[in-house]
């Protein structure tokens, strides 16, 4: 019952639209659109967090009223999400190399 309740959230299915599209349209889905789009959105979010961290450091440096801890947390958030992105990229490259090594 718990699991069926979670499907109403929408966040999970929205995060992976490619699988739905592939299930509905089958082979007609454009190749690379699903994961590529996901990766693009992720890069966008990470970039937003990085810019946010940059801006907060700048506002602290010029003396605008912004809490020290808020700046530190913004930097930490940017760092963690960047590491997440790096891991996803590493995994994708690893999968690609694994396939390229496959003898045909």
């Amino acid at each position: 019952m718990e699991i069926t309740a979670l499907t109403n959230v929408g966040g999970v299915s929205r995060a992976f639209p490619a699988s739905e599209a592939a299930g509905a349209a089958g082979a007609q889905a454009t190749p690379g659109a699903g994961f590529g789009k996901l990766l693009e959105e992720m890069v966008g979010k990470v970039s937003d967090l990085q810019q946010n961290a940059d801006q907060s450091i700048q506002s602290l440096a010029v003396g605008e009223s912004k809490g020290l801890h808020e700046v530190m947390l913004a930097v930490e958030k940017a760092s963690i999400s960047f590491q997440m992105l790096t891991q996803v990229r590493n995994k994708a490259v690893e999968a690609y190399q694994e396939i390229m090594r496959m003898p045909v």
Partner: protein
Amino acid sequence: MDFFTAMDISASALTAERTRMNLISSNLANVNSTRTAEGGPYRRKDAVFTATPLKDDANSFGAALSRATDARSVAVTRISEDTRPPRLQYEPGHPDADPQGYVAYPNVNVVEEMADMITASRSYEANITATQAAKSMALKTLELMR
């Protein structure tokens, strides 16, 4: 990511504790202030903390989960003034002395403020530790992918 919710809650607590620390500094600095803009001696100030629901800016899985778990951040909603009477001290030569020669000093007790300061700084440290724990949990989770 839901680890950021924990960090946001800790950040709100850090802001609240910082406000409290500012008020304690103000109380300690004005322990002998006999004049204020409102008239009369300075009155001891204290922060009132309120548990507030999280900002649900995103319709993400993490935001829905934190709403379901009923997590609350903290905010300072009011600065209350202590209603205890001022401390009267016999100083006939003081310019703020009343006709009987008594000067009304602020109702600030330095020892009490020091104890409050220790509480505030320990709470701040506790919230820093919570943030670090959330961060190390997130980083440990990322190590799963290696």
